[in-house]
Every structure is written in structure tokens, then in C-alpha cells.
């Protein structure tokens, strides 16, 4: 498959994931499972942009590590703060 074709498919996949992700969470009162699903969709979309648009696999190790830490860290933080929000509130409340 040509590089250009991959870019087109990546865009199509991102559009589907965006619409699907919006439908997943929008308008419904959801629990932890949906939060995890939304975080996974976020991580997948970011991975596609990093891989095909930003071309991170060809970048230097430092750039790759820093960007992947940020990009994959966010969905993990979404899940953790959803699961342990009360602990975060207690810790930050004591600090602030």
C-alpha cells in the first residue's frame, strides 16, 4: 500500500473513531466502562496521528519518548483520575 493511501485510510479511520467516540459518550449517563472506552478511543486516535501524520516512528528516540509519554499518558490519567478521583481530591485538597 502506498504512503498516500495509508494517509487517506488514516484520515477515514480518525473520522470514524471521532464520530463513534462522540456517540459513545454523548447523551448517556455512563459509568467507568464507558470512560475506559472513551480513553482508549482517544489513545487510538492519537496513535494514528503520531504514526501517520507526525511520522514519529522515524523521529529521534528523545522526540519519540517525549511525545509518546504525553500522548499515551493522557488516556491513562483519564482512567486513573476517574477510578481514584476521591483520592486525588483528598491529596490536592491537603496540599492547596
Amino acid at each position, binding site marked *: 500500500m502506498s*504512503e*498516500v493511501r*495509508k*494517509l*487517506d485510510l*488514516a*484520515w477515514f479511520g*480518525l*473520522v470514524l473513531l*471521532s*464520530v463513534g*467516540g*462522540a456517540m*459513545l*459518550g*454523548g*447523551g*448517556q*449517563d*455512563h459509568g467507568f466502562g464507558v*470512560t475506559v472506552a*472513551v*480513553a482508549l*478511543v*482517544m489513545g487510538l*486516535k*492519537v496513535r494514528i*496521528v*503520531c*504514526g*501517520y*501524520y*507526525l*511520522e514519529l*516512528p*522515524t*523521529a*529521534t*528516540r*528523545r*522526540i*519519540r519518548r*517525549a*511525545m509518546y509519554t*504525553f*500522548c499515551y499518558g*493522557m488516556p491513562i*490519567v*483519564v482512567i486513573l*483520575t*476517574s477510578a481514584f*478521583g*476521591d483520592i*486525588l*481530591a483528598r491529596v*490536592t*485538597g491537603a496540599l492547596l
Partner: protein
Amino acid sequence: MSDAAIALPHSPPAEGPPPGSPIPGGRIPGSKAMWVGIFCEVTEFALMFAVYFIARAHYPDVFHAGPEQLSLLAGTGYTLMLLTSGWCVARAVHSMRANRQSACLRWLIGAFVFGTGYPVIKLFEVRWNLAHGLNGEAGMFIVTYYYLTFNHLIHVFWGLLGMIWVMLRTATGTYSAEEYSGLESFAVYWHTTDIIWLMIFPLFYVLR
């Protein structure tokens, strides 16, 4: 910084693996200066996301009800505009690599049109928000929302200005298949701005 990275500060080498495939040591897409700016941008937004998560932990009920107040249609519209604009930019870079300057310019114009859709939607959304009483005194969720999204809007404006610059440079034949580091630097900035929006969107419009 590795020797390989220092030796390849600009555009990809004329020979070697195609873009997208792993390269031992790697290269710096665009320029070092742009990556310094990008890491500053990422750090700035990481701090703002930390504020969001702490606020969410302290006001769970407010953040639970928050997304219902905003327009999911507008949020999805921003996402589609930015993703399509980013796709056009990626195609523009590939066109330049193939030494097709006119195609590159057409893709950049397309990217600009879709990119401009973002502030246009923002204008309508803010008017809609204010008509529904969602101003700076509407609670912690809305304040955090305005703070983060307006910061992102500023970065989009910077990107649109940069896009005008690279369009002019492309139109005047400054870039070539051998030297297009300016175009690629802009592209990595625009894609990073895109990535940050992909994080903001679910936090404010989807997650409850």
C-alpha cells in the same frame, strides 16, 4: 542528542527508508527549533490538563453534568475540521516530497479552508453558549472549558498564520523535494495542535 540526529537537522535524507518506517537513531522532522516550541506547547497543555483533573476531582458533580451544557455537534465539528486539515497538510508534505509543488499548494489551501472552519465554529459556539448563560461565571466546568479551549484556539491561530506563510513560500517556489524543512516544521506543529484537540474534545464534550 545522538550523532545521527545532529547530522540530520532538516529534511529527510535523499536515500534511506521511506517515511513512516523506523530509522535507527531517527531524524528530526522539521527543525530542532520547532520541536523546542512543540515541547513548550505540550508542557503548557499538560499543566492545564492537570488543572482540569484536579478541578474534576474536587467538583465531580459539576463535571458530570458539564458536557450536557455544551454542543456535542460543535465539538465533533471542530474535530472533523482539524482532522481533515491535518490530513491535507500531510498530503501537502507528501506532494512536496514527490516534487509536485502545485499539488502541495492545493493541499495547503485545502488545509487552510478546513483549518479556518475551527474559529468559525468557535464563533458560533461562543455566541450559542452566551445565549444559554454559559459565561465566565457559570461554574468551575465552564471556566476550565473556556480556559483550555481558548488557549487551544490561540495555538490554532498561530498555526493558521504559519499556514499562510508556508503557502506563500510554496507558491514562490522556495521549497523543493530536497529542502522543505520549513513546510515540515509547520506540519509537525499543526499535527501536535491536532493531537491536543483530540485530548480536549472527550474531556469536555464526551466524558461524564
